[in-house]
């Protein structure tokens, strides 16, 4: 029991104590990252892809990202889990992409985007705890998962460029979709009755942690 409590406390360590604040942060991060001028456009110019033909070819939603229908079909915890995993894979892909540059200064926004992805994953992790469906990882992640979207070595540079371009376009599109869903959560907090943000459900055998009545501070309930 003590170990479980310690584990739960450790998992919540570093999390915002407000559900609304977490949601707001995620919305802001998504709003910021969905702008293609931050990453996609600089990449297109850098890689000599700035033609209508290649741009159109670039704007293909990669299958590695969940579709909007698939995301909307998920429950809140499922949604968070999917986004968390996708962002983890994306983080690795961007790391691989970064290595193909001669220097980080060629695409300086890439490093910031990676930091934001980590921040979003942490916030999703904490939000999942608020919803009572913690993600599989016990701590807010410091990096991505080990599943990679790295282009296969068989691809030559031209197709690697195109694939990375699609990846970035898909990233902005995906983040925009995630942001819209989060805004809907704010508009309709009771979308999923099974996972109301006001009621924390801890894994079996774990002591529950509830927010205070003011809705700001989680309070342990003695059993």
């Amino acid at each position, binding site marked *: 029991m003590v170990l479980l409590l310690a584990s739960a406390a450790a998992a919540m360590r570093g999390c915002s104590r407000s559900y609304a604040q977490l949601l707001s942060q995620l919305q802001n991060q998504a709003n910021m990252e969905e702008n293609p001028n931050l990453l996609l456009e600089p990449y297109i110019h850098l890689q000599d892809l700035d*033609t209508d033909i290649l741009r159109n070819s670039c704007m293909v939603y990669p299958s590695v990202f969940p579709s909007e229908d698939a995301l909307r079909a998920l429950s809140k915890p499922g949604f968070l889990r999917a986004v968390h995993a996708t962002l983890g894979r994306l983080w690795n892909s961007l790391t691989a992409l970064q290595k193909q540059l001669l220097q980080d200064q060629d695409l300086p926004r890439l490093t910031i985007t990676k930091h934001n992805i980590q921040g979003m994953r942490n916030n999703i992790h904490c939000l999942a705890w608020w919803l009572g469906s913690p993600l599989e990882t016990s701590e807010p992640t410091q990096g991505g998962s080990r599943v990679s979207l790295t282009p296969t070595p068989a691809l*030559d540079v031209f197709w690697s460029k195109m694939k990375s371009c699609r990846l970035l376009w898909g990233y902005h599109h995906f983040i925009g979709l995630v942001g819209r869903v989060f805004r809907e959560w704010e508009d309709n907090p009771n979308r999923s009755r099974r996972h109301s943000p006001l009621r924390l459900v801890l894994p079996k055998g774990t002591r529950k942690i509830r927010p205070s009545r003011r809705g700001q501070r989680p309070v342990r309930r003695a059993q």
Partner: protein
Amino acid sequence: MLFLISSCLAVLAERFQLTPQLLHVSVNSSLQRVYLQWTIPNLTYHQELKMVFQIEISQIKKSNVILVANHSSAVRGDRAVHWSWDSELPLECVTHFVRVRGALDDARAPQPGSWSKWSPWEEAHVSLGPNELLVYPKEKLVEEGSNVTFCWISGVNLNNISCYLSGIAIHGERLDAHVSTFKWNNVLFHRDTGTNFFCRHTNPTTYDGVTVFVSKVLEEPKDFSCETRDFRTLSCTWKPGVDTALAWSKQPSQRYALFEWVSGENKHCELKNSCNWQITQDSQELYNFTLTAENYLRKRSVNIAFNVSHRVHPKAPHDVNFDDVSATRARMTWRVHSRGKSHTFLCQVELHCEGQMIQEHNVSVHESGEQLFGDLQPDTRYKAQVRCADANHFWKWSEWTPRNFHTLEAAPSEAPDAWRTVTSENGRRKVALFWKSPSKSRVNGKFPFYNIVVKNMENSSEVQQHALQAPVNSTWLSLGQSSYLIQITFTNSQGTSPALVMGISRDSGNEEVEAERVDGTKEGFMISWKPQTRDVVGYVVDWCANSQGQHCNLQWKNLGPNATSTNISSDAFKKGVRYNFRVYEISAHRIAHLIQKNVGYIQELAPLKSPDVILSNPTSHSFVLNWTTYATESQPGFIEGYHVYVKSKDAQCPQEWEEVVLKGDTHFSAPDTLRREVLGYIFSIGGSTFTTKPSLPYMLLQIILSMTMCVLFLLGLCYWKSQWVKEKCYPDIPDPYKSSIRSLIKSKKPPLTIMSVKDCIPDALEIINKSEGTKTQGGGTGKLHAENAPTKLAYLRLLPTEGSSGPGPCICFENFTYNQPASDCGSCGHISVPPRDPPYHLELLTSPNNLLNVLEKDYTNSLGEIPAEQSSLNYVSQLASLVCGDKDSLATDPPMPQHCSEYKMQMNISLSSMILLGQGKH
């Protein structure tokens, strides 16, 4: 033996077909290179022959031979022959065919061998689907300036292909129905992420592309050099040139490696601009290095060879110390990093003071060196620095090793530079002493004390002593009327300076010398004087650096006994500031006598402040102005005089001012010529206006005169009316019996009743037409009117205006009786316009009655070119006036035209004066 071998070879050539057998055909797509390997199957394991091979390559079809190449090689049974070929066209674009044949090329053979049979064709081609589109070469890496040939292969269903190089559509050359090429010549580096070439088919939609990486040309390393600082490590440096790295891991930055030919050792350098090489301990002195820069496309090398003892860059000297530092000397010692006593260093020693190098020395050193600095200033901070180089084979100086030191204090070496001013107050004299802050060379130490000793020369018991500490640089003493001797010295921790002696005589402070003007320039004031006495040891010129009213900031200049002039210059001199200079001669008894005063400006400026004027004793006809408080000495120039402008209160034209110029006076009393009603005045150096009120009697006089005029006019009108009625109604009937003529006729010719006028001898005339007399009375009235008319102008000039070429003081009067048109022009008024009043000038120039026209006309009249009509009119009017005034004088003293001419001339003179005055103003 030779014959036997030759016979064997001939047999071999005949018996065995030396046909090559292609073992392996491979392709490097990025290099577009074909590798071939073949053997001669019939050779034994140990048998070796020299052979020449012929390689044939065809494209698309076997008959389309594009290359026939020869290749010589020694052939053995156990060794394959290698050959490669670089294709301009990507090898994947078309099918290639390759075959090889050989022939003996051995000198031992009696005759050249014939070609063997060709090997079978080897074919390489790319298989393609019907809807497939491929572009080659994939991931080409080329150097700037190279040529790149792209090709694209389309399936049978794809016919309309469009291709783009970096987004720009290109048109290719068709090799066959499904293969086209495009040659990109002289490629340039565009970006390190590569340049994209892609082709597209729209229906069905498919596209393919490649990225060509263009590398900058690898540059040769520059300024390659090696040196040692410790005989343990050679440090080699160079300038690497441009970085040829490319993105997508296509090419890293160029790598550098050192190869030393003597030792045969090689080293890859971690840094791109330097590399360290360990010196071997086996006393290797000669080194021969090759520095190689290498990337995927090219190698560039540079080479240097040197003796390591000639490439010694010593470390900076150490253990730098100063011994025996005194007030004027110091000894510096240091040590060098030496290889032994046999090795000599040349060391350079510099001594700096206040940022400037003052001494430089070169010293030969084995292990330690020393340098003695002399001629130093006491109590002064110095910086000494030393650096060394190999004396036998100069390569580079070491870094400087600097150290600071401070010399000791010494007794002051020179007397203070001091001066004084003496003023008398209430029977005592106030002596202000000033001294200049001593230079380092004078004081030789810190915190000097100034010692002042005052001795009464007439009373040896009266001695005053004062001690003042820097930074005080002035004091004052109160002395009696006796003669005094003042000694000033300064003292530091090491001693006392020589004394400066100044004598104060009985008349010091009471000298009266008239100040003379001195003209200053930008370069200063040239003050000159005449020696007064022979017993002179020098002169002193003093002045205040600041203007009047501020702290004086006394300055002085010491001059030798033979000096008779000096130029006083200072950056502090300002325009418009009056400076007073006093010249003193110093007697052998050190007593200063004032011999001259000068006052001047480096540049005078116009007065900025108007006098504060006081109006006193104003009456209806006089006034007194005073501006005695006006401080001329504080003005930005010498005040030469004052302008007073006066005009009548009744003047109609605003520009009718009278100008009075005063020289030096600080008051103004209205002269007799101006004693009438005064409206006000203006100073030319400022603006102030005063108005005097007309007095009551004068106003009454004006009323009475006006009423008198009216009464006289009515009386005249009544008289004229009565005469008219009398003539019309009751004319006078002459009485012939009362005539004297009748008595004359009666006595001489009684029957004659008609008198002939020609026979009359007139002895007297009687004017019987009274009406003419009435008209002449009108002329008198006109004269009275002229007197009562508003006073037009009277000009008084007391001091000629500078630059004026006009006549001296003059007075202008106008008489409207004989020059009526002049009364309308107001021409005189134009002349007295104050010069600083632009509107007046404007009016003058734009007036319909232009002054110049008027003046020209009057000036012409004065030369006697007056039209007859005007002349007669004026003169008749003048005469009529006189005649009517006195009948008796008409009979006894007829009117003289010359008298009228004088009147006319009077007016003309005044107008001429007006012209000249006006010219003087402008």
